[in-house]
């Protein structure tokens, strides 16, 4: 199993380690609920070094990226981030990712650890004659996420004053520990926060520094367990749960991310355009359990005694004290506030369809 350059830091902190996408990662340090609440109330530091960093550079970078995603990369201004999906010929999602425009003809792609290999192959396969260079620098860079309402204060303490910090969904280059780093104001928690990309050799020192300077602000290291409950409360999709190669962004409820008027062709465009107009039978819904039970990945969803879909993610939502979930249903008629049932250990339990605002998010801005 692969280890990040923060492995020893995790062991020193007494983390419980698990296998995630071939990486030995911390699932929790103290308690998932305690860590979860601390990110909502104070701040948390995550090791996300397993994620992939791919640089796309060269004269035809923009044209090349435009054929890969339903979003309009041309609208992306310098130092800004765009949430995208690579789509295949069927409109299915190869991966979801952030594309950062560092400058003209220079893009940074942050992709899921579990999909890095598939993504890199996808890029190479579609490169054909485009004048671009594709550099997978995931082996050189580590990444940490600093998230929570105190994240900006803590970043200021380690030397990036508030007035110089990137704005929401922006990225910039900074010096930290005498090293060039990228800092973006993005995350996967629904809170304000930053992701810092730094060379492997320096990440351990950075980790220690942030925990030290963050102490007065109540910072805690956060494992993958709380990362999952935080993103689910924020109704953010996880590749492998909500997203896969047989699910389109329209089915996945990501229509809001797609540029309906994008002129350029992209892989899967016909199918996605048709779905945008006609809608789809399969669609992602959010729900709250009204009976006392927890829905889990792959539990069947019922309506009127008929199986209509399955749960993709479910957990207790520590912030609101309710059991929540996401799932796919093949049904056009059910709407928000309608009752569905989840099959749990051969018994049906009631749940209510809700909008995707389980919590009030604090990561939205300019």
């Amino acid at each position, binding site marked *: 199993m692969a280890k990040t350059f923060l492995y020893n830091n995790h062991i020193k902190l007494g983390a419980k380690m698990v296998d995630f996408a071939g990486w030995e990662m911390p699932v*929790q340090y103290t*308690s*998932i*609920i305690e860590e979860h609440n601390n990110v909502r109330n104070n701040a948390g530091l995550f090791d996300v070094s397993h994620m992939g960093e791919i640089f796309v550079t060269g004269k035809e970078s923009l044209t090349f990226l435009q054929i890969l995603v339903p979003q309009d990369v041309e609208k992306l201004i310098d130092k800004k981030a765009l949430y995208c999906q690579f789509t295949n010929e069927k409109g299915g999602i190869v991966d979801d990712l952030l594309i950062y425009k560092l400058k003209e003809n220079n893009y940074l792609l942050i992709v899921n650890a579990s999909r890095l290999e598939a993504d890199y192959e996808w890029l190479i396969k579609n490169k054909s004659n485009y004048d671009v260079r594709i550099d997978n620098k995931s082996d050189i860079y580590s990444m940490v996420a600093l998230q929570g309402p105190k994240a900006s204060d803590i970043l200021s303490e380690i030397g990036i004053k508030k007035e110089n910090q990137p704005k929401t969904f922006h990225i910039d280059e900074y010096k930290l520990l005498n090293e060039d780093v990228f800092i973006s104001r993005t995350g996967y928690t629904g809170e304000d926060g930053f992701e810092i990309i730094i060379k492997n050799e320096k990440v351990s020192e950075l980790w220690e520094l942030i925990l030290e300077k963050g102490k007065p602000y109540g910072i805690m290291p956060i494992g993958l*367990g709380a990362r999952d*409950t935080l993103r689910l409360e924020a109704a953010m999709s996880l590749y492998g749960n909500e997203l896969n190669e047989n699910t389109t962004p329209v089915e996945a409820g990501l229509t809001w991310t797609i540029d309906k008027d994008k002129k350029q062709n992209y892989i899967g465009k016909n199918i996605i355009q048709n779905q945008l107009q006609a809608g789809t039978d399969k669609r992602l819904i959010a729900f709250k359990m009204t009976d*006392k039970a*927890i829905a*889990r990945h792959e539990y069947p969803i019922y309506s009127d005694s008929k199986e209509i879909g399955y749960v993709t993610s479910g957990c*207790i939502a520590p912030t609101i004290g309710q059991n929540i979930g996401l799932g796919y249903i093949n049904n056009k008629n059910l709407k928000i506030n309608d009752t569905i049932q989840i099959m749990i250990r051969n018994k049906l339990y009631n749940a209510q369809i809700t909008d995707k605002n389980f919590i009030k998010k604090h990561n939205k801005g300019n």
Partner: protein
Amino acid sequence: MAVKDNILCSKSHEYIYQEGSNYFIGLTDYAIEQLGDIVFVELPEVGSSYTKGEIFGTIESVKAASEIYMPVGGTIVEINEQLIEKPELLNENEFDEMWLIKISSNTYEEDSADLLNYDTYKEEAE
């Protein structure tokens, strides 16, 4: 703790100890620690009967649901009601307070033959 000296454990991490004519069944401290934050417990109805190895309940942590098995056959005499409302009490790990079910058993002698004492169980678990 005194209870630890008198318990027998199954490989699926349940413990059992005798008190009077009944038996208390719970989850070992090792299992609780592995599960992490416990957020849900489902226990059987009083009066229902199970054979050794049958599933009698479910315990859920934030991450996952796990089934709980009868270490010996028997009939449910009482369940630990406070855990239904406050499953997080299980994380406090006191063997004599955090039992799950109390049973009567006619088959304890033969059913308990393959159970392990706490020290041997702990060695095998770790």
